[in-house]
């Protein structure tokens, strides 16, 4: 069944000429022309050789790149209940501006997405407001209280991609075991925010030398890794399908690697901020750098990068978490956890991982799209006959984060003020043009 929802957009007819086309899954990495006709990839040809229908828009892609557009399996849309932070329109504008053709919302809203009534209203809202296709996860436990199971079969029938209590761990191993058992009936991925609250306590940042210096209560790495290991074992025992959200610690990477080697049906994600920033960056107590899990040590960051490179970490997810100014304009320990990320993910990773040679460009594109595979969504591909899901990117463009504002309603971006390279100029999602960079001029043929 269809599990992505968006407002109707006119199908694009578009000829992008002379760009470098990159989609490792389709084996595409070449300069060429790309013709999109009525929202479908119609032709791929040598540069300058394709001709376009008379009504086609022509885009000069010379010196630029076209990627298979990105899929984010982990964003906070804040709908319903926290529309002052974000709504479906602003979130999907931000997604499109970041080169995303699909995003998946988490259920920790107010009310929680734990019933078909809430899910149905979200679906309807997305059909009116979403600029790029949106999918929804439902809660594992009603109200995220960790006490029982939601009506997982009905939620799946109403379109839920899977289940998560994200924002909170499933503390009870017994309940999680039941969820894995019930998954055999309803399907859908079970995605887990891994944290042992008796270890993380009132912590506000990574436990290490920086937290010792600042006197801020620490969140030790083992609060995550012990739960990753526990829940991988549970999934393995029940034959469940599990996805580990926002890994932050080297020990967690090792636990996922061991589970994969043991044959557990497990996938994992890492966020752009954990791949680019560390606890040292938190010394100034900038609340935009407060998130859960916290930014950890350089050894953790290196392990995450290596895991993204090797595939132990399957995909990159932003954990886009918009917050109102008053939630962040307070002392660090009181500040809300989370950073926005959709608009900066590609540029932050390109600048900090690809340019220094830590990650191949093709691998980055692959991991930014792989969220689709994790959640059994259609994979964006640059191949003839596929629906057009591509983004046009200028890798030479340098920009300062936040200088021109954000498409998101919130401005709590951990990369604010930083100079990044790589700017998304245009995004085509589900066959329609979802975004054009303001300064990017286009000419119709």
């Amino acid at each position: 069944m269809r599990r992505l929802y968006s407002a109707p957009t006119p199908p694009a007819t578009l000829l992008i000429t002379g760009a470098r086309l990159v989609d490792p899954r389709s084996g595409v990495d070449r300069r060429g022309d790309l013709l999109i006709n009525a929202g479908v990839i119609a032709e791929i040809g040598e540069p300058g050789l394709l001709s376009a229908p008379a009504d086609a828009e022509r885009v000069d892609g010379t010196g630029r790149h076209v990627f298979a557009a990105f899929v984010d399996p982990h964003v906070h849309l804040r709908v319903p209940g926290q529309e002052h932070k974000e709504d479906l329109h602003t979130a999907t504008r931000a997604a499109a501006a970041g080169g995303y053709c699909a995003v998946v919302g988490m259920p920790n809203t107010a009310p929680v997405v734990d019933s078909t009534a809430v899910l149905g209203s979200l679906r309807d809202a997305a059909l009116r407001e979403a600029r790029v296709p949106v999918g929804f996860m439902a809660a594992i436990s009603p109200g995220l209280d960790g006490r029982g199971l939601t009506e997982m079969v009905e939620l799946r029938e109403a379109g839920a991609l899977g289940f998560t209590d994200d924002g909170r761990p499933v503390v009870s191993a017994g309940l999680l075991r039941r969820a894995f058992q019930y998954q055999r009936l309803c399907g859908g991925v079970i995605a887990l925010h891994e944290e042992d609250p008796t270890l993380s306590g009132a912590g506000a940042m990574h436990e290490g030398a920086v937290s010792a210096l600042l006197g801020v209560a620490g969140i030790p790495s083992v609060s995550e890794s012990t739960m990753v290991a526990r829940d991988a074992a549970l999934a393995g025992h029940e034959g469940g399908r599990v996805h580990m959200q926002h890994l932050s610690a080297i020990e967690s990477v090792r636990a996922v690697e061991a589970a994969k080697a043991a044959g557990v049906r497990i996938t994992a994600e890492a966020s752009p901020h954990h791949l680019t920033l560390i606890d040292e960056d938190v010394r100034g107590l900038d609340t935009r750098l407060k998130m859960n899990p916290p930014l950890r040590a350089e050894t953790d960051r290196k392990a995450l990068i290596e895991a993204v490179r090797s595939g132990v970490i399957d995909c990159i997810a932003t954990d886009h978490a918009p917050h109102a100014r008053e939630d962040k304009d307070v002392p660090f320990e009181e500040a809300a956890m989370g950073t926005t990320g959709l608009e900066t993910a590609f540029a932050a990773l390109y600048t900090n991982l690809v340019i220094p040679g830590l990650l191949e460009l093709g691998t980055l594109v692959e991991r930014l799209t792989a969220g689709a595979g994790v959640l059994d969504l259609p994979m964006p591909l640059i191949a003839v006959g596929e629906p057009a899901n591509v983004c046009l990117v200028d890798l030479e463009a340098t920009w300062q984060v936040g200088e021109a504002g954000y498409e998101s309603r919130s401005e709590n971006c951990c990369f604010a003020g930083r100079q990044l390279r790589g700017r998304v100029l245009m995004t085509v999602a589900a066959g329609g043009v979802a975004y054009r960079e303001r300064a990017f001029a286009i000419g119709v043929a």
Partner: protein
Amino acid sequence: MNNLLSIEQLDRDQIERLMAQAARFAEVSDREIKKVPTLRGRLVVNLFYEASTRTRSSFELAAKRLSADVLNFAASGSSVDKGESLKDTIATLASYEPDALVIRSPRVGAAALVASWTGVSVINAGDGTHEHPTQALLDVFTLTRRIGRLDGRSIWIVGDVLHSRVARSNILAFTKLGARVTVCGPPTLIPPGIEALGCDVRYDLSELGQADVIYALRMQNERMHEDYVPSLHEYVSCYQINAGRLAAHQVLMHPGPVNRGVELSSDVADSPQALITAQVQAGVVVRMAVLYELLAGPRVTGGGGAPVAGAASASAQLA
């Protein structure tokens, strides 16, 4: 120097300059009339989000000895109880155009955050479990008056280091002045990674004899309920500084208030080796020196309620 936010931000020269200034004020304190007109017409606001007796009263006394006006703003019973944010409270107080804002908050980084919002000179009077820089300065003042320079001296800080802003500021201040600092306490109350501040870590007192100075921290009752230590009895048997553990060549310090019978036995707390009363006395002159350094020196104009430079230097000459 516009603000005093942490010991971390100070270098040895700045600490020594503050000590020299405090020594001059200590001479004034020995006179019959203890007041100088240095900060006449200036306004010092004390904003305390936590209960405090000695820090708040010594800041108040220090400001008054310098002839400044003092406004005490306690968070309880105020607009803060009605849910006002820190930022809005600061905006309200800034509208009185104070020259200095002394803030104590249960939150790490609160003083620095306030300094980023206002051009007023901000003094950190304790920010959560981060730092308490004026406590460290008064401890340095007290200690150097008693034992001279700290270079090469061994100082043991004993107790609940994890929850102690005094410990953090003092480790930094003592090491900046050349001392070797060892922290000692139950492993549950020593923060992982504390060695990065330049101190050694011990979990028992077996080598306490090597210390020239023992600095005992307050052991709060609630730590027992949070399972950091199994019982007060066991803490006392492992870590209490008492006559059997305090050697004749050692001096003893404590930031107060003392839990007699817990971290200190009464006999050592009252012994001539204890500097506890001297620490309190030093609090006033050291805080005078801090206020003087921030308000009476040549000012960097920074907006807010900053006075004109001419007025500042005129009052400085009166000192």
